[in-house]
């Protein structure tokens, strides 16, 4: 809408004054002014911008738009909400706590001893097929991976394979930058030092015969972490790169021995290491441990049967009132099981619909004058 400017001088001198004494009429004077103005150099530019007359769209949120809009949005949201809820409900989840703080629980002995590689096992039974692909998580609670000092305690340059940072780790790694005899720690810092070191194997007992379930440890970390962000130093053998450094204090073996069987899963690009290094957002979290390899019997997931998880129990959590668990879950297009989204969509969708109904009632009752 472009407004045409009208000179204010026209027709504003009231008739009484005009008639009074033959003075120059308002109209003719303004015409004169227009002529003069166009010649003057000081005159401000008469552009739409300077005169604040830029063409503008002036939307009005009228009920005519809002009510149908709300109905549409509401219906769409309800649709999405239902889909989400249905999907979420179809996801199977199996959670097993193995902290071992109760006396009856299988790992209670391990949780009390300080033995390295203490073994315990959990048994569970599946009545039906656990639809694949099945993901195997471990979960920790009351564990503050998002603690600031903890989170800052790593050296990304070191983990990028930069050898110069091997000998002099970043001060942010303190107190895990040097060991007691001033040897640099690689990888330095609290995060690396506190890497989760329980290990699990899953076996199925089919008619008395134990069969170990194949677990796949590939692709559990972010692709970019594995390929770009973390790198081993380009030294072969890898061990040589670590000369003069020591392993993190709480580690059982140095970084170059994390997975000796697979060079592409060793050192800093070890998938378990990468998963651990991506800090969790909240104190109760789960991290991906393995995927059930979809092969052989496990093509469609975990078939019904009796299972045993053999746990190498190392990670102490009871000192800070934490808990450990293993979680089996399959995922859908929306990720893991999460009812919140579906509910939120349903709530907001129905809210929209309710509101549009309310508005419609008011509308019908009063009618909007501007829309007649």
């Amino acid at each position, binding site marked *: 809408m472009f*407004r045409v*400017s009208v*000179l204010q001088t026209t027709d504003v001198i009231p008739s009484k004054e005009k008639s009074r*004494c033959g003075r120059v009429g308002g109209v003719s004077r303004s015409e004169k002014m227009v002529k003069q*103005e166009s010649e003057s*150099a*000081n*005159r*401000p*530019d008469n552009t739409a911008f*300077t*005169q*604040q007359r*830029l063409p*503008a769209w002036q*939307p*009005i*949120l009228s*009920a005519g738009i*809002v009510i149908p809009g709300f109905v549409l949005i509401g219906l769409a*949201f309800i649709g999405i909400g239902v889909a989400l809820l249905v999907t979420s409900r179809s996801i199977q989840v199996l959670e097993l706590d193995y902290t071992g703080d109760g006396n009856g629980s299988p790992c209670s002995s391990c949780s009390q001893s300080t033995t390295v590689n203490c073994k315990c096992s959990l048994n569970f039974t599946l009545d039906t097929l656990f639809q694949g692909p099945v993901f195997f998580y471990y979960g920790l609670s009351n564990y*503050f991976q*998002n*603690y*600031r*000092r903890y989170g*800052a305690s*790593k050296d*990304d340059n070191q983990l990028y394979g930069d050898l110069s940072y091997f000998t002099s780790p970043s001060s*942010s790694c303190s107190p895990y930058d040097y060991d007691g005899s001033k040897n640099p720690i690689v990888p330095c810092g*609290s995060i690396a030092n*506190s890497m989760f070191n329980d290990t699990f194997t899953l076996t199925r007992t089919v008619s008395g015969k134990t069969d170990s379930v194949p677990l796949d440890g590939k692709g559990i970390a*972010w692709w970019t972490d594995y390929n*770009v962000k973390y790198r081993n130093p380009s030294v072969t053998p890898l061990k040589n790169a670590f000369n003069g450094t020591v392993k993190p204090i709480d580690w059982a073996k140095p970084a170059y021995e994390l997975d000796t069987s697979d060079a592409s899963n060793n050192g800093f690009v070890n998938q378990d290491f990468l998963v651990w290094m991506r*800090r969790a*957002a*909240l104190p109760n*979290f*789960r991290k*991906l441990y393995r995927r059930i390899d979809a092969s052989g019997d496990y093509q469609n997931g975990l078939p019904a049967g009796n299972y045993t998880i053999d746990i190498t129990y190392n990670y*102490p959590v009871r*000192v800070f*009132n934490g808990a450990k668990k293993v979680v089996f*879950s399959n995922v859908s297009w929306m*990720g*893991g099981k*999460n*009812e*919140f989204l579906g509910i*939120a*969509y349903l*709530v*907001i969708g129905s*809210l929209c619909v309710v509101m549009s109904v309310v*508005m419609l009632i*008011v509308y019908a009752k*009063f009618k*909007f*004058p*501007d829309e007649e």
Partner: protein
Amino acid sequence: MLRRRLNRWFGGEDRRVDSRTIYVGHRPCPANEVFIPPKFCDNRIVSSKYTVWNFLPKNLFEQFRRIANFYFLIIFLVQVRASFVCMPTQTVISDIIFFKIRTSWLPLVFLTVLICSQGYEDWLRHKADNEVNKYRVTVLEDGRRIQKESEKIKVGDVLEVDEDETFPCDLILLQSSRDDGTCFVTTASLDGESNHKTHYTVPDTERDVESLNATIECEQPQPDLYKFVGRMHIYKNNEEPTLRSLGPENLLLKGATLKNTQSICGVAVYTGMETKMALNYQGKSQKRSVVEKSINAFLLVYLCILVSKALVCTTLKYVWQSKPGQDEPWYNEKTLKEKETNRYLNMFTDFLSFMVLFNFIIPVSMYVTVEMQKFLGSFFISWDKDFFDSEIEEGALVNTSDLNEELGQVEYVFTDKTGTLTQNNMEFIECCIDGHQYKYRDASSEVDGFCVTDGPMNTVQQKAGREREELFLRALCLCHTVQVKESTEGFIASSPDEIALVQGAMRYGFTFLGLESKTMKILNRTNDVEMYELLHVLNFDPVRRRMSVIVRSISGETLLFCKGADSSIFPRVKQEEVEKIRMHVERNATDGYRTLCVAYKHLTPEEYDQVDSGLREARLALQDREEKLMAVYNQVETGMNLIGATAVEDRLQEEAAETMEALQGAGIKVWVLTGDKMETAKSTCYACRLFKRNTELLELTVRTLEYPGKRREDRLHDLLLEYHKKTVQDAPPAKTRVARNWSSQDFGFIVDGATLSMVLNSSSENNLHDYKDLFLQICQNCTSVLCCRMAPLQKAQIVKMVKNSKGSPITLSVGDGANDVSMILEAHVGIGIKGKEGRQAVRNSDYAIPKLKHLKKLLLAHGHLYYVRIAHLVQYFFYKNLCFILPQFLYQFFCGCSQQPLYDAAYLTMYNICFTSMPILAYSLFEQHISIEMLLENATLYRQIGKNAMLRWGPFLYWTLLGVFHGLVFFFGVWFLFSNPALQDNGQAFGNWSYGTIVFTILVFTVTLKLALDTRHWTWINHFVIWGSLAFYVFFSFFWGGVIWPFLRQQRLYFVFANMLSSVSAWLVIIVLILLSLLPEILYVVLRKLFLFNFNQKSVKGIFCHFSGLSNVFASRWKSLVVFILFFGVFFIFFLFFYCV
């Protein structure tokens, strides 16, 4: 010796109190045995604020009086210092290190620039002062002419001033190059009167200035320009000293210019800062707008929020750590340094760390954006072509951009009259002789100079006798103080009416040729020269409201001609003549003309002698000279014969009346403050429709105070009480009056300078009634107030009084002359009219416009828009930073209160700088919630933003709650989502940076879309900037996360954003949370419109169409709060319901 010194000390004290003695030319006087050269201040003018020495401390103090500046300084120090003190803060900073240090420098740089610019301004002032102070003047010392610098003039120096020079200090005129001992002066830069004023030398001093031996005794300096009392002792050869009285006519004021006179000599009586000009000058202080004050208040609230947040977090941190195993779990050991540090020091540094973490809640960038908005926005005023005046070829001028929004808040307008409301261009319109109306017409005037027009008297198509006509015209020609300009054709006079009258007489055939050695010459109709000896001039004064001359014609007749206001003439003439003329006068007066009645009287020689001696005696009196003169005047001016009346038009400025009406329609009260006479000002008020026919005028002037048998103080008391009863107590309550739209009894109030000073000064001695208070209440209940005969400083006093009254209303002064400078400086907003006289008003103003009529658009359109824009800007900024930092605060509860930032450092810094700053800037520059045309047409719209409507606590609370709501939605929405962090379809989990990025994305989108909802006027710039900054956010996030940045110590955001977008859940949660946040707003907009229509169906439809979009502007915000809470409740119930299912 000691005694003398003591005397001097105490003498000095005494002099302060009553009078000062000046030795002309520093020559000791024979009369005084001891010559003590008195000490007076030197003639240096200081308008600068700082010196080299006090500049830095004083300026810094000024700067840090702004809370914001002080806060930023503290935060900066914390950030810099803390890094040396202790570890936790340091790591917080290193978390935020990338931009943070650099941005905390920003305000400091900003401050430095500010200080530098103020220093430069002051340097300019120093330069201007120096120019004045170093000006070369001629001093007569022992018969020699010495060139001196102006600042070295001492009281008692005799100076010589040439034509067109400005007087360097206040002088007593001793000698003039003109024969008659007069000189002409214009005081345009002092009181705005551009006409020539005549000043007189002191008698007997003229001939021998060089050897003059005299002392002057005069009062201590005081700011009243029109008042001066003193006397001069002249010593001649050991004779008894002669005594001469001195009055304002002998005093030449600093700042006035000598005209039409070759040179004069004068003795300096007041110098430097004691001159009347300097006493009337007010330093330009920095003006602050209401918005700025609101910002400061809000800032304090946010500071409290900030501190309490930091306190809560610190407390919680230590509570949490006191639980076993939490303080130092095995996976997160403290460093040695941390263990060694004192626990309380740790607490303190933790507190500081939280402050640093949350300090984004107080937006540094808001100050930058506000400054930018003001600076850029003010261009629209200077660009506006409606403000362009083709006569002076100039548009509006913006001297300060700090006050744009104040233009939308004006409650009182104080306007000067001459040159502002009127053009100060008098025109003789008509006259009436013996009840016959004569109207001047160009065409017929050649026939016989007079023509009869149709008027109310048109049935009587006859003229007055020729003799009466000529007598009337002679009266016009003689009864005045006009001078004929020597060089060019034309007249100069102290009042433009007189010129108009003389010119009017000229048209009818009687030309005034001039005054030569007390003889007035007139060229009459038959081209003969008539000569009259001028015996006495009975000067005009506002109390008598008339002036007279006594002349003797060639034939020896002594005649008194008198002209004056009808009310002062009618009682003094023969009553039978009055009725014929009264009708004309009243009709003319209601037409807005200035009317004067003319009368004459024959004086017998005896009568004349008596008058003559009476006048001479009174003129020499030292005590009560005025009163004595007045008594003689009154005695003479009785029993006169009325001849006729004149009507002179004081042309109004273009559209003055329309502008005034529009301002009143906008709920602004207009006060006219003028140095002019009451009659003149009153007729102007009628012409401008400030006073209307039905307006009841309440007069509180010198005239109404004259009441037989009562002291003036008592009379003042009575009148004040009476008016107060009328206007305040008996008036219907304000609400109903507004509803009736001023249609009921209007009151107009008239007060003059003398009475005003009585009112203002008497309050201290009269404890029973505070006159000032009464006076103010009366004024505030009148639709218009007229203050006449005001000295410049009194104008400022009035403004100050209103400014400081209850509710501290926003005042605006508009004027064109130097006499308006003090009120322009005093008012919240000062507007200068680019008049013909001088530029002083323009230079001291905040805004200068070519014509008064431009005030309408300046206030109603520009002011309104600026206010809405900036108010929204401020609220929005606080809101967006609150919902920015609230999730960060909430996150502390989930990370062991460890100061873990939720967002990445880049996001933290870029949020206010790049992602959300441009849309609001564009909004605050281009928004027109109501079109300019609509604003100009409906002046009442202006009332709706009055009293700082958009920045009061109600709206502030609304925005704050909105911010809290949004912050809660953002954080907990994502928190619920992260109850299972496996959000991707490949089973991988998201970490803390993903969490922050999702929250941040929702935040940026919501905040920007919220602004989009508020935008009513979408120009392409708005589109570009709103969608552009969203696009930029997405682009930046990809870019920032797509590269391993070598200068970063931690690649925290590497591919976080891209990964987030690969998750369907993240998309869905972003969409749903944005919608949820905006839903109450949309609902409110629609419902509000609905209610508006239903409640206001009878009122103007069009206006409210435009209001519907103003979702959050006006005071009815409380209604929206209810909607808000209801919405929240319903939402909560739904949620519980579904969650249980």
